[in-house]
């Protein structure tokens, strides 16, 4: 997993170094209907055992490449003025505890971005989709390998240029199998993350 962290760090450092300083003074980004966004986000997952039946202390890094498309022009005239984007995300998780296992999923993702603050744009997002992990079946919370992942969270995008933004935020992760097998207690986790997005 270390090599992924190295790649992400190197990419981000390269992007910062290649962004001309003069562009930092440019105006707010112009994001309209049809503007696309590709991004790469990484974070670390910390488990939440919400009941006494939950015993697994799963934790580990997460990498989430994503693609989104802007569906609307800014809606509203007040502080809540914002835009809705729809897209998809790949989720890769490495569980380091209780066993070194992996998980991968594909989730449609919807995001509401507040645009009233100009270059600093908070957002709220929600995503959910199928998720496969070989941790399933080895712990008491999940009976099988095929699961679903649901995430919801908030974040903030800081536009370095009208095309490039750094993101940071928090997500709550829930993994369960929707009752397709028992037990199905589900795994819950917090996922603080950081990353960048490119708009075109």
């Amino acid at each position, binding site marked *: 997993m270390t090599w992924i962290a190295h790649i992400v760090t190197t990419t981000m450092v390269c992007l910062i170094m290649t962004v001309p300083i003069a562009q930092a003074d440019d105006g707010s980004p112009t994001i309209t209907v049809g503007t696309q966004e590709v991004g790469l986000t990484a974070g670390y997952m910390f488990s939440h055992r919400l009941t006494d039946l939950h015993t697994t202390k799963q934790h580990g890094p997460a990498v989430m490449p994503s693609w989104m498309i802007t569906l609307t*022009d800014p809606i509203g005239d007040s502080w809540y003025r914002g835009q809705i984007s729809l897209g998809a995300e790949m989720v890769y998780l490495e569980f380091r505890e209780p066993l070194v296992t992996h998980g991968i999923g594909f989730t449609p993702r919807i995001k509401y971005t507040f645009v009233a603050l100009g270059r600093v744009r908070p957002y709220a997002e929600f995503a959910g989709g199928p998720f496969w992990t070989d941790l399933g079946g080895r712990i008491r919370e999940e009976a099988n390998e095929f699961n679903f992942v649901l995430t919801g969270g908030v974040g903030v995008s800081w536009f370095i240029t009208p095309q490039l933004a750094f993101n940071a935020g928090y997500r709550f992760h829930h993994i369960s199998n929707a009752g397709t097998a028992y037990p199905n207690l589900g795994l819950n986790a917090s996922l603080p993350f950081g990353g960048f997005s490119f708009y075109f």
Partner: protein
Amino acid sequence: MATHALRWSIVGCIGVMLCVGTGCTRSIELKPSSAELQPVESHSLANNERVPLVMDSFHLLRNGAPQNPSAEVERRILNKVQETRLFSTLIPLGAKPDSLGEKIVSARVTLDETIEPHSWLSAFKGIVLGGSMFLLSPFVDFEYDYAAKVGLELERWDGQVKRYEGISSGTVQYKLFGATPVMIDELKGHVTEACLTELTAQLVRDTTLYMASSAPVSNPGIRSVTVRAQRPSTTLPTRLTVPATTPPLP
């Protein structure tokens, strides 16, 4: 077994190609359609019959709210007017021409845009598409409406004012994966072009109105002012002017 796999692979490929093909489409519908618009027939006027056109003002409204008009739009309108070959020179806003002569035509332009992006409906459709894992993408259309009304008011050198108006609207229909900011620019470009074509067609019909020989120059330096004595009100007491002294007779 191999034949079976090959058959399903071909079916799968065709299915994916159909989904991608239909999921990336977009189309623009104009009212009136470009086919209905007659091309502008420019009249060949003699050079001495052409007069300069000077932009006097340019107002831009978007959904009823005043906006800062762009020089790009102004240039486009002037270019379209230039195609009529009715005027000798076109002077944009803020430009200071050297000498234009006595006969000039002043232009006042208003561009009233109406944009309807159907944001809430698009958001709802987006949720439906996300919930379907994008499988419904080839079957769900998004829409973006744009309408424009270009008004051109020309004031001739003798003070005669005539107003022209071009109206057009259009809708771009697109699938999710066919969306791009360029399509909005394309829609606005087509609608504006239709407006300007209609406008210039009206303008060309009045070619004789803007010929230098069509009217003499009214001299702006001589203005007749009619001054009337104020009629005294009946409610107020009238003042009688009486000379204070009478000059002695010789």
